[in-house]
């Protein structure tokens, strides 16, 4: 594997007052026990845009993404330092209630993980737990979120069937519907298309393009075409560092860093 100078970086500073920033991180370090997987990443994410995180596997994309809604809190021995700013508050501090925060920063995982409940309950369950009891609101939410996720037509007659009977692509779209039912600000997706066939992937990408009207989306993908097709910004991760962050167009046509150029052109490693 070629070695690259990890000091050679280009991180575009989006937080320049010209646009609205939904979420930003400042010098995030993440360690699993004694092993540090993220060595200080500072990125700002623009509102209502799609940002793609790319990089070789093991470069720390998931780790970084999961620290954004403090999902790593649940893994024993994991430590996250640095600031994660959301609406002027540091999410990575004890003063912010982590459960409340996750309602605003939702997440969809690589493996579709519908609950062993009906399709309807998959979407309404968390809402009910959070206090939404009105039947008409719940019905309405199920319909709109399933429509937004592009699943409504296929399942509208089977809403009370087990969600475990869905195919992989359908299950993943159900997970997206479930996440947006919380009306989050930000949607984090960790390789949501990794287990899907090309047709499901295409549908998913369409869905994401529509969702960005209402949500800020951060998506991990190691499919470069996908990043190129759907994202507005792209961050390139290498060995626990973000080496380049810029508009997707520039990353794919005129990257400023050698490592990025090699990676997007397929000459990496």
């Amino acid at each position, binding site marked *: 594997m070629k070695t690259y100078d990890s000091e050679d970086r280009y991180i575009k500073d989006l937080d320049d007052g010209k646009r609205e920033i939904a979420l930003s991180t400042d010098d995030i370090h993440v360690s699993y026990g004694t092993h540090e997987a993220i060595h200080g990443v500072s990125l700002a994410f623009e509102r209502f845009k799609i940002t793609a995180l790319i990089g070789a596997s093991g470069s720390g994309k998931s780790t970084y993404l999961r620290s954004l809604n403090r999902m790593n809190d649940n893994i024993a021995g994991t430590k996250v330092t640095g600031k994660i700013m*959301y609406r002027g508050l540091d999410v990575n501090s004890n003063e*912010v*209630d982590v*459960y*409340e925060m996750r309602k605003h920063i939702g997440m969809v995982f690589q493996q579709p993980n519908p609950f062993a409940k009906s399709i309807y309950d998959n979407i309404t369950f968390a809402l009910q737990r959070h206090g939404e009891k009105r039947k008409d609101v719940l019905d309405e939410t199920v319909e709109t979120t399933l429509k937004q996720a592009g699943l409504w037509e296929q399942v509208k007659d089977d809403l009370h069937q087990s969600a475990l009977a869905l195919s992989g692509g359908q299950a993943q779209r159900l997970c997206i519907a479930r996440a947006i039912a919380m009306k989050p600000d930000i949607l984090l997706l960790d390789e949501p298309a990794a287990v899907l066939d090309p047709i499901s992937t295409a549908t998913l990408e369409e869905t994401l393009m529509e969702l960005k009207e209402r949500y800020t989306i951060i998506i991990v993908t190691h499919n470069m075409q996908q990043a190129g097709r759907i994202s507005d910004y792209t961050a390139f991760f290498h060995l626990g560092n973000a080496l380049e962050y810029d508009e997707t167009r520039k990353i794919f046509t005129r990257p400023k860093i050698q490592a990025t150029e090699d990676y997007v052109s397929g000459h990496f490693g």
Partner: protein
Amino acid sequence: MNNDEIRANLLKRSRASRNERFGKLISGACITIIIAVVVSIFYFVASKGLATFFEDKVNLWKFLTGTIWNPSAKDAQGNPQVGALPMIVGSFSVTFLAAIIATPFAIGAAVFMTEISPRLGKKVLQPVIELLVGIPSVVYGFIGLSVVVPFVRHTFGGSGFGILSGTFVLFVMILPTVTSMTVDALKSVPRAYREASLALGATRWQTIYKVVLRASTSGIITAVVFGMSRAFGEALAVQMVIGNAMLLPQNLISPASTLTSVLTMGMGNSVMGSLSNNALWSLALLLLIMPLIFNILIRWIGKKGAMR
């Protein structure tokens, strides 16, 4: 919701966070109760069982090696007659004999289930073993009383009550447990071992004997020790067929007794705090300690097995 509201909510302690605290408290309380139970079992049984030695000044060695159990009377020197050896010998005899008979059957059945015919194993033997585990011990005792004891009487003479009958009953009782643990041990031998051996031209039996059983020896021993621990602690089934005579057993077909049988028979007939009662609690303490020793033994075997 506007920005300020969202910020205010983020800074508040949420419903979910209160719920989490509640859950930690409840589940923590449950586990604490269980631990308290374990600790108090040891505390109470030990404090009663040790009284024989500390309050009634019975010599521990005499207790373990004495052959006369008659706590209500004193011997010629004025010492209490609490010799537990007859029961200890009885308990260990039935335990070891049952394990010795059960082991080949358990291994045979387990080999059949994993190596010869997994299909029949799963469809027939597995449910049979589960049902055998489910039969209550008093039922084993009753059948022992009405089938095994007469059988032993007719075949070997004597009253039929005794260690031999106890052994037969315990053999059937521990067989399913030892078998299913042996099955687990055999299943944990990697498939590649078998394939390598078969590829070298070994017959199925050679593979089983030289490869599979060798590789799972420590697991099989663990299963047997576990079965012994069960047999040692079994009370009613044994008590019903062993004859309950507190004499050092001279042969396998004369009435004998075990720690458990003496306890079940005697505890109701003695006054709390009296020497004869304390002496019974000392037997209970022995029964409490034995599973610990079996447990340690199992772990030690497991470690040895893992090291190889």
